[in-house]
């Protein structure tokens, strides 16, 4: 299968950038420690609705999978800008699926390569500073499918921004907007569990909350196992909607596309 091969190719390519990986790990470790220290200072012994262990876990999981969240495949958008996309259009493949596989590989490899060493280190930190064990084996088991659905969701989101780039020819505008939304609405900047109760009801329905917030809450026990099916349903809804939207955008692009020069 060509989609699987492009997936594997992108995985291998990601391995070429080991320096970037090590740099990324240090950067994310630093962010994690600073953020946890910040929340500890804010808590300062007062009891809060969310225990500090859960916040620390939330922060570490967010930092570990940082690479998964943000658009980073510049090679893809460069192709669109330069017109090298012509070659991809001359292939007997479905363009949406072809790019989806590419994005998925880059996100998976990029984040897993960083997450494994980071989470190992975070487990070694003292309780309340590092990451805690999942609330229960069942909680962990339920968090895995939520993570997969969230992953499918984030790839679909990025493919939409790529499709948008075909229209605007410059990925920076849309990427800046989406990254800002991503930072706030996904819980990367401030854990969604700390938002006011009434806000959380709305914000957890958005696609961004499906990526990491939903699986993390299942992990820490903020969502009880009885919630799991409801969570999966919301996630699945977004996966289907975002993929559908992406496919529609790609098809529309094909009709009106111009490849300029040479």
């Amino acid at each position: 299968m060509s989609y699987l091969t492009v997936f594997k190719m992108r995985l291998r390519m990601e391995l070429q950038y080991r320096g970037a990986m090590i740099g990324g790990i240090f950067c994310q470790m630093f962010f994690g420690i600073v953020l946890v220290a910040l929340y500890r200072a804010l808590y300062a012994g007062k009891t809060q609705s969310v225990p500090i262990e859960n916040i620390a876990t939330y922060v570490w999981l967010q930092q570990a999978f940082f690479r998964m969240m943000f658009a980073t495949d510049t090679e893809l958008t460069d192709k669109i800008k330069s017109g090298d996309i012509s070659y991809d259009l001359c292939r007997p493949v479905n363009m949406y699926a072809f790019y989806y596989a590419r994005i998925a590989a880059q996100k998976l490899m990029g984040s897993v390569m960083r997450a494994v060493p980071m989470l190992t280190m975070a487990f070694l930190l003292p309780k309340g500073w590092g990451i805690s064990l999942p609330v229960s084996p069942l909680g962990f088991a339920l968090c895995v499918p939520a993570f997969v659905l969230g992953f499918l969701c984030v790839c679909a989101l990025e493919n939409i921004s790529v499709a948008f780039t075909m229209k605007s020819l410059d990925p920076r505008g849309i990427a800046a907007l989406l990254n800002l939304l991503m930072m706030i609405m996904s819980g990367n900047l401030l854990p969604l569990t700390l938002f006011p109760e009434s806000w959380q009801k709305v914000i957890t329905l958005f696609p961004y909350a499906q990526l990491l917030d939903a699986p993390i809450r299942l992990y820490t026990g903020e969502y009880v196992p009885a919630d799991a099916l409801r969570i999966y349903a919301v996630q699945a809804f977004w996966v289907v909607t975002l993929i559908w939207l992406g496919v529609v955008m790609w098809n529309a692009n094909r009709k009106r596309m111009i490849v300029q020069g040479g």
Partner: protein
Amino acid sequence: MSYIEVNSLKKDFVVKKKREKGKLLREKETVNALKGVSFSVEKGELVGYIGPNGAGKSTTVKILSGILTPDGGEVKVGGIVPWKERKKHVKNIGVVFGQRSQLWWDVPIIDSYNLLKDIYRIPQKDYEERLKELTEALQLEPIMRTPLRLTSLGQRMRAELCGSLLHRPELLFLDEPTIGLDAVSKLSLREFLKWENREHGTTIMLTTHDMEDIEALCSRVMVLGHGKKLFDGKLSDLLERYDTVRNVHVKFSSEYPNLKLPEGVEWQKGEDGIVLSYKPSKLPTAKLLSILQDAGNISELMLQPENTDHMIAAMYKELDL
């Protein structure tokens, strides 16, 4: 019915201009890149497609390869309308865009080929056979395991060509394949294209600005200008139709003689001697030579070979391109 059938093909682009002072909206201008081009190509032909920059050559190639949807006209390649059945169509074609790259920049070339094998679903045995054949013909063995970014331009072009031919396409589009290549690379690339065309009967459509490419490869040439087809036929016929200027370098052994040159002949001082330019149609070469001989004391005389580039330039000028 021919293999490629193109009938009054049209394509427009909208170009947005910078807003003028005092106007509310930007002005839009429609550029008619193709204004009704028709031609047909038989299987196994090697056709050159020339024209000045912006004539619509690449647009034609992009439509024929299913990337762009035209605004009018009919196209059939092997009975398929390229942009309507894109996936089915592109299985049978190979494309090389001289200024772009299809291989992956950071991974060894062979890995890019393996990806192409999966994309085109080439059976393993067939793939190995074809890869071996192309590796030999294009001398790719030494760079097979090198990442593309570490190869030279000439090596890269050969690697690109191999990538486009792995799935044994019936039709190959080459968009300026020799751009930026040195003489040796150009010659070997041409040899290879001739071989591919002869050995496998691959139909090749070549766009280029390099007239030597056309001279060496194409028996048939099409000229495009301002979105219209201006000529379709043999290269020699094309050149005959357009009168061009030729140059003679003359060196004198002693004093520079007082030459009485007939009308239409221009001269200028060269490095050592003079250069005369004349049009063979107005003044036969033999006549000019006899005039020079009468003037005496010529030590050296060199007739410059016909230069296709000059002829094409003259032709473009005459056609007001």
